[in-house]
């Protein structure tokens, strides 16, 4: 039987003089408030980041679902097909639900992914609670640290891209699987049926396996954990049986992707590189702390970043190995919670080695890819919680003074390691959202502006058919009514407001001389005088009074409010596309707040084939530019 480390002792129970106890209690309340505030700050800022970086259109790897569908003609035929080195059946099932229930708007996978992060946090907390009794403040701080870590924006892609659900799913399923096995062992010790929890553990492991290739390693970790838990023989046999069966089924027709290194070659020829990648992978959450501490020293080289993260990771792995040995040698001193935490950390380290084996031919800095940060964070939560329980036990024998220092350390780590970098990620998400808006404008307008399409998928032309499929089936962004406006008579949808309650103009026009889908990129600015805001929507109308383009992406134009005092926001710029190759004259209109009235913006613009040009008509945009030139500012 395990002995609780601190037997339900609260801080206020410690034998201290009343006045000091009161001051400690006050300090503890302050610490609790700070921890809650920091956690709330990280949560809220991360939600803002998710909002900034959301797009209903597929991006990068998530185009693969539509590509495979077009190649195969049905969604089931490629369910098990490899995606790079993974078999992502679970991810594809989530996307199929998104396609048929939620019109492929990418929101369902994203929400699922965020909920999985919440579930991971809950599983980890429940495991931590099994390490022994702890004070209320301690529990609160550990909860805040878990919540802050799993919602921190250093795992940016995993928070904002639905397709990254494979990362959040494997973390959640592996923690859930180990927790379920712990529960099975507890029930068995209590003399109750453990089979159901054992089955839950196996199913979770299967979900992890078919979310990401490293999920295969979980079976080995479960078997070791089962041995530590001294589960009955039939459970261990079942785990071994499942491990072999799942492994064989997974490796059927498996091939190493051509761009990846051969694991055997990597192990024999580049073992040092594999270890560096693995160390940096585990230590990647410290890259954020390094960035904060290194501000006075300027931007470091990639090698410097890898070295720092690698050193942190090596320390972490060293401590894990030591803890693992102790866990096995002095089994009676540890709880099932301790063992589960060590096995979670072990799973992350095995994953890091696997990544190193498969990506030994990649640049070393790839190990610091933000999408790997979720694993690193789970590792450090597990290791931190493992040692925290011992710190608590030791402190229990000392004075409350040491409690204050230890608790303050946890809060400081949360602030320094996680919260301080959030503003950076907010700025990053805004820039990211701007690129997504440009991609959306080009795809919806059907103008093949190749560099922009390449920002969506490396070979931009390869997704033309998929974009057409989304348009024809009213999926993704094409569920929105504005995407169908082009070509319709403007008077059928809107009325022109003669009161002229807006200002703005065209600024530049760039021909897109694509052989495939030509057009023009036009930009300008607009200010809604009634609402005192920048443009929500700008409508471009051709001489036949049909809508030629719709612009929905306000962009920052800081020079405009500087030049025109009436404009009070910098989000007044717009950039859009007009498809076609026949020169024509365009008028731009601002769509007013009623959603029906249009307000004309400046003079018409004549589109022509040839060089890029800035518009030289006398309009407020030019006046703003002229003033900037006069003042020597950059344009």
């Amino acid at each position, binding site marked *: 039987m395990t002995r609780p480390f601190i037997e339900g002792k609260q801080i206020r129970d410690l034998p201290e003089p009343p006045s000091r106890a009161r001051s400690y209690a006050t300090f503890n309340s302050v610490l609790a408030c700070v921890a809650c505030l920091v956690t709330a700050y990280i949560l809220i800022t991360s939600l803002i980041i998710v909002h900034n970086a959301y797009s209903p259109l597929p991006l990068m790897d998530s185009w693969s679902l539509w590509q495979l569908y077009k190649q195969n003609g049905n969604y089931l035929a490629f369910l098990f097909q490899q995606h790079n080195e993974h078999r992502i059946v679970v991810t594809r099932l989530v996307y199929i639900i998104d396609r048929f229930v939620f019109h492929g708007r990418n929101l369902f996978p994203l929400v699922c992914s965020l909920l999985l992060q919440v579930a991971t946090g809950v599983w980890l907390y429940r495991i931590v609670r099994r390490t022994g009794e702890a004070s209320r403040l301690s529990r609160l701080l550990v909860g805040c640290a878990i919540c802050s870590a799993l919602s921190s924006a250093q795992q940016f892609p995993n928070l904002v891209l639905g397709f990254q659900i494979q990362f959040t799913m494997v973390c959640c399923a592996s923690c859930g699987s180990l927790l379920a096995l712990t529960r099975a062992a507890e029930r068995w010790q209590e003399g109750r049926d453990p089979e159901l929890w054992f*089955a839950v553990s196996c199913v979770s492991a299967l979900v992890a396996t078919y979310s990401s290739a490293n999920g295969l390693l979980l079976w080995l970790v479960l078997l070791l954990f089962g041995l530590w838990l001294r589960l009955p023989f039939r459970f261990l046999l079942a785990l071994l049986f499942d491990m072999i069966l799942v492994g064989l089924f997974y490796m059927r027709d498996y091939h190493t992707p051509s761009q990846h290194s051969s694991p055997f070659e990597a192990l024999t020829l580049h073992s040092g590189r594999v270890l560096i990648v693995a160390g940096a992978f585990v230590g990647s959450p410290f890259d954020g702390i390094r960035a904060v501490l290194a501000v006075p020293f300027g931007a470091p080289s990639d090698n410097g970043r890898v070295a720092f993260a690698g050193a942190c990771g090596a320390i972490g792995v060293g401590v894990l190995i030591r803890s693992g040995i102790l866990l096995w040698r002095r089994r009676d001193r540890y709880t099932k919670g301790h063992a589960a935490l060590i096995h979670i950390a072990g799973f992350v380290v095995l994953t890091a080695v696997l990544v190193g084996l498969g990506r030994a031919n990649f640049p070393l800095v790839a190990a610091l890819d933000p999408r790997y940060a979720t694993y690193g964070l789970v590792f450090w939560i597990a290791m931190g919680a493992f040692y925290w329980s011992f710190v608590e036990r030791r402190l229990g024998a000392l004075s409350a003074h040491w409690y204050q220092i230890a608790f303050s350390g946890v809060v400081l780590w949360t602030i320094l390691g996680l919260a301080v970098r959030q503003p950076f990620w907010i700025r990053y998400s805004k820039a990211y959202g701007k690129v997504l808006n440009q991609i959306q404008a080009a795809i919806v307008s059907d103008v093949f502006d190749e560099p922009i399409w390449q920002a969506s998928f490396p070979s931009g032309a390869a997704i033309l058919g998929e974009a057409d499929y989304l348009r024809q089936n009213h999926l993704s962004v094409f569920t929105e009514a504005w995407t169908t406006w082009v070509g319709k008579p403007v008077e059928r949808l809107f009325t022109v407001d003669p009161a002229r309650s807006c200002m703005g103009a065209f600024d530049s026009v760039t021909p897109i001389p694509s052989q495939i889908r030509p057009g023009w990129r036009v930009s300008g600015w607009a200010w809604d005088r009634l609402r005192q805001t920048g443009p929500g929507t700008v409508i471009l109308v051709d001489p036949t009074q049909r809508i030629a383009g719709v612009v929905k992406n306000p962009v920052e134009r800081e020079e405009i409010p500087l030049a025109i005092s009436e404009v009070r926001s910098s989000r007044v710029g717009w950039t859009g596309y007009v498809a076609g190759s026949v020169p024509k004259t365009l008028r731009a209109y601002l769509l007013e707040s009623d959603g029906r009235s249009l307000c004309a913006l400046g003079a018409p613009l004549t589109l022509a084939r040839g060089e890029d040009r800035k518009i030289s008509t006398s309009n407020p945009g030019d006046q703003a530019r002229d003033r900037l030139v006069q003042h020597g500012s950059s344009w």
Partner: protein
Amino acid sequence: MKTAALKSWILCFAVVPALLLVMYGIEQFGSTIHLRASGTPPTEIGFIDRAGDPKGAETVSTAGILSIWGWAADTAKGAPVDRVMVYVDGIDAGAAMLGVTRRDVEKYFSRSDYSNCGWSFQMPASKLSPGKHTVTVTASGPSGTAQLAPNRIITITADTDGGRR
């Protein structure tokens, strides 16, 4: 007692194999559908990218030009195919011009012999009555004739000002 033991063994040993079996069944079902689809030989392949006015809007006034373009290839011979025929409401509207360069299609299929698979077709919209019309296209080549996807719906609107705009 026996039932409890059986339940225990089933939960321990049968859950994962049963799920794998279900997954295998799904995979085989999907592959069968795929084989059936790819087993039929519509070896002329292609697509109607757009039908409408020259910039691709699906509404064309009677004073305007109806433009239709896309790509077609023969999976055995490559591109261009022998003939691409355009039909409006099932009535022959004419043959499309072949040989337009389509690097995107070439890149997508990794087939250099698809590089000239583009085709385009234009006709005065005045030949059509105002209202909705369905555009269909067929491609013919050494491997046969196939209808290209998808059918496009266009709307012809009456030109009220005699095309003066």
